[in-house]
């Protein structure tokens, strides 16, 4: 039986051992053991289709899909919040009109998913999935409910810090990113092998949103800001549309 103390020891041993991206081989996250490639990734210059990304438009995504609190007949339970931020590429240019998808647990830490058997209540008014397009300045915005922490079976008494899954596209295929946004000051950070699979503390902090009182709406919702930098592009400016 693996305890939190065992996992925490393993996490400590691997601190600082990787770069700014998560380690693919990260045994404290037990599911990674048989699922990480053992050879280094092959460095290659992108070409052809890799220099472009799929295109999304308003036929693809309705404006209402960015509001996760209006998808069912009633108001979901929990702490209403807005999360917004700007997506830029490695050169600081905004990523315009590009797709952002999110999914998350409800306020009780339960996912709207068959495989989630956590004995916390489902909320009939909260599914927990949304999407939007960034605007002409690269800004995305979602209204949602603050997700709860939840248990998982990596080890005994394993709990994930509250997070929202984000899926992002850039202007090149090679900028594709799926990650998780966390909330400031979460006491579970040090204990969580998924968050700690990024062994560089400065890189980890990039996934933590900032509470922003200027985004908070009086008597309605709290505001969080989370800006995201994708990797650099490979196209020259001449190729830009």
């Amino acid at each position, binding site marked *: 039986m693996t305890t939190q103390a065992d996992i925490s020891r393993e996490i400590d041993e691997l601190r600082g051992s990787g770069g700014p991206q998560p380690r693919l081989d990260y045994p404290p996250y037990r599911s990674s053991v048989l699922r990480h490639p*053992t*050879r280094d990734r092959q460095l290659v210059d992108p070409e052809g*289709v890799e220099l*472009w990304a799929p295109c999304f438009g308003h036929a693809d995504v309705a404006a209402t899909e960015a509001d996760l609190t209006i998808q069912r007949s009633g108001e979901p339970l929990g702490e209403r919040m807005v999360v917004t931020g700007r997506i830029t590429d490695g050169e600081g240019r905004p990523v315009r009109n590009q797709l952002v998808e999110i999914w998350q647990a409800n306020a009780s830490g339960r996912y709207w*998913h068959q495989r989630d058997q956590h004995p916390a209540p489902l909320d009939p008014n909260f599914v927990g999935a949304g999407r939007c397009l960034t605007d002409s300045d690269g800004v995305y915005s979602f209204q949602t409910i603050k997700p709860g922490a939840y248990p998982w079976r990596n080890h005994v008494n394993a709990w994930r810090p509250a997070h929202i899954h984000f899926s992002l596209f850039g202007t090149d*295929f090679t900028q594709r*990113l799926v990650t998780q946004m966390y909330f400031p000051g979460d006491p579970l950070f040090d204990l969580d092998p998924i968050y700690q699979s*990024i062994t560089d503390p400065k*890189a980890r902090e990039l*996934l933590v949103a900032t509470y922003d009182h200027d985004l908070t709406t009086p008597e309605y919702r709290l505001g969080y800001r989370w800006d995201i930098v994708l990797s650099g592009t490979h196209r020259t400016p001449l190729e830009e549309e």
Partner: protein
Amino acid sequence: MSIAPGQTVGPFLHLGLTVEGGNLLVPPGHPDAVRLHGRVLDGAGAGVPDSAIEIWQADGSGRVPRATGSLHRDGFTFTGWGRSQTDGDGNYWFSTLVPGATSPGRRPFIAVTVFARGLTDRLFTRAYLPGDEPDPLLDGLEPGLRDTLIVSREERGLLFDIHLQGEGETVFLSYPRQAR
């Protein structure tokens, strides 16, 4: 720049990454439709049931689609992008077109991204068509590794298994300007 690190899609990826008809780049009844399919396998040779595969490719003439509508499939427009989740045995499949070369004399390939529970970050690879054209990536790999990037042709199909680890481990790619 402070490039955001990736994180696993986790076990509930279906909640956020489901797109209706996402694996149908063309309807299966399209006269030129082929099935691109395969299994995602772990280091013990077991299928990975909680994985998603995305593809991005040119059409049959090598044209890279530039029109919006990649999520909303109208049944006629080829938008070149697709997403398939694996089933309980780790199988994924797409109905798509055989891509043409995006520049003359080059070997056509389909760009592939792999996501899974247990995979801390997404992986990139390429699914090449069999052929003789020179290719800087393939030509620099020893045959055993090169073969992991080449699809097998079937009647009306292309087979491309993805081995995350172990025997036949797929060659995964990184690109300049990405954080490592």
